[in-house]
């Protein structure tokens, strides 16, 4: 066992799931929310030369996706170290 106790393993997995669901919520909101379901509402707002909903659909959601993955990488690497389950540097 990589974890010292069963409780540790459960806590690690719970923290992992919570992080994943939080980030997936953002993922859903920017693409399906802003880019599709709320597009007509957001299109009332101007963002430079774009209608905001259109911008989220064709630009904004993609930038957000990139940021989400790197946030996940940083948070997970920290979580691994906190629980002592990171990979050995061999």
């Amino acid at each position, binding site marked *: 066992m*990589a*974890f010292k106790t069963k409780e540790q*393993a459960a806590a*690690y*997995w719970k923290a*992992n799931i919570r992080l*994943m669901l939080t*980030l*997936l919520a953002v*993922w859903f909101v920017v*693409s*399906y929310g802003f*880019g*599709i*379901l709320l*597009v007509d509402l957001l*299109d009332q707002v101007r*963002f*430079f*030369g*774009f*209608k905001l909903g*259109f*911008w989220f*659909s*064709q*630009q904004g*959601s*993609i*930038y957000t*996706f*990139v940021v*989400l*993955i*790197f946030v*996940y*990488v940083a948070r*997970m*690497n920290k979580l*691994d170290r906190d*629980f*002592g*389950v*990171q*990979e*050995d540097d061999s």
Partner: protein
Amino acid sequence: MDIQTATFLIVGLTFIVYIGIAIWSRAGSTNEFYVAGGGVHPVANGMATAADWMSAASFISMAGLISFLGYDGGVYLMGWTGGYVLLALCLAPYLRKFGKFTVPDFIGDRYYSQTARTVAVVCAIFVSFTYVAGQMRGVGVVFSRFLEVDITTGVIIGMGVVFFYAVLGGMKGITYTQVAQYCVLIFAYLVPAVFISIMMTGHVIPQLGFGAELADGSGTYLLDKLDGLSRELGFTAYTDGSKATIDVFFITAALMLGTAGLPHVIVRFFTVPKVRDARSSAGWALVFIAILYTTAPALASFARVNMIDTINGPDAQGTAYEEAPSWISNWEKTGLITWDDKNGDGRMFYAGDERNEMNIDRDIMVLANPEIARLPVWVIALVAAGGIAAALSTSAGLLLVISTSVSHDLLKRNLMPNISDRQELLYARLAAAAGICVAGYLGINPPGFVAQVVAFAFGLAASSFFPAIILGIFSKRMNKEGAIAGMLSGITFTAAYIIYFKFINPAANVPDNWLFGISPEGIGTLGMLINFAVAIGVSRMTAETPQPVQDLVESIRHPKGAGGASAH
């Protein structure tokens, strides 16, 4: 220097680079052949994944497609990038920790069942062949257009090059050639985009030019002008959609889930040394993909304004055919632009209603862009090299999945478990060679439904692999009965829906007949939901997962102790 000489020179140079890399990185073991020895740097793997993922269709057709669809084109942009978030958060790190070679490996071991493995192998081979036929066709088309050889010769040259580095180098050769191919294709995509952006808006960065005022001193925003033009000419406004919201939602989801379930993408994450590299590698892949995918919609809008202005003239009365720029007549020869002077005034006119006299193929938006923007010949040659790089990199990745499925999943893990590593490697090479021949044949004699089956491939991946893998990681309770029942019901439903509307009764393929208004392109999402529901239902009524499998699931959930990928 004329266009043809420049193209021969630049395309020839890139081929020499690819072959040189293949010789330098040839594979000596199955481990190197399947997963490049598991030693690829995450950034390099990100680049290779991006090249693997972006096909001839992304490079040649996507900007044109968006340019004709406007807002609705967003389904491709979000759908083909959003899947990487799912890959990074829900799949890649766990599958890397699992540490085998293929997706059927995971399905077979996690569900302790040869049946499940076989279902996965059949899906993987079918999805990959569907794709690769289209890629070979893409190579042929680019060759024939820019080098004026016929399509068959073009396909054979392309087959020869892929044969050389895929058969010799396996995943190792493919990975490093894909890195080179990414550099070629992204450079070839950005150079014309930057020039056109400067020309039209004065911005160097196309993504900024997209939302800026036009450089003609009118003070009008590019997109406002495009919306105005679209309405005057009888189209829907560019920034408004014409598809139903539910359909846009389901198509986007099917493309995202399909991306996360495609075997040739997933297998790329088995090539990095560590679990944390698999996580960051997905991020890098998306960065490299996003560079092209955020440029494409900008390019699409520039090209559309440019095209309408050129054809309809500044006063929107049409341009006299004799005064048309030379690119129109150049591309008329290829049949990608046709003009039918309906009202007999000798002027071309493009519109969305009965005034229209033009028939314009969407592929022209990227291929003719350098000519429309009057860029030097070397840029035109570069676009040709970029299109070929995009097609070759994707076909190589797919061929590897096919050869691995045959030599590893089918022979080693199923029919001939006693073969040695060297024999397995030989079979892998033979399977890759056979795969190239079949792909080449399909490229030369394309079945009439190549375009339709792309939707099929995504729908299948979304409704079969994606739920099986997700449940395999996140639910210990999921057993083989549930997974197999789920995969079969998801696939059957999705395939039946697509086959009915695309092949049996295409005339009925209109929104009124669709289930909940979901088009065949988006039905994979519903298939996935059915898969999840059936799998969970069946697993609750059948025997519990054996303890060793529960331990396996426990061990892939954290990174410690991940070794290199291994066969056993």
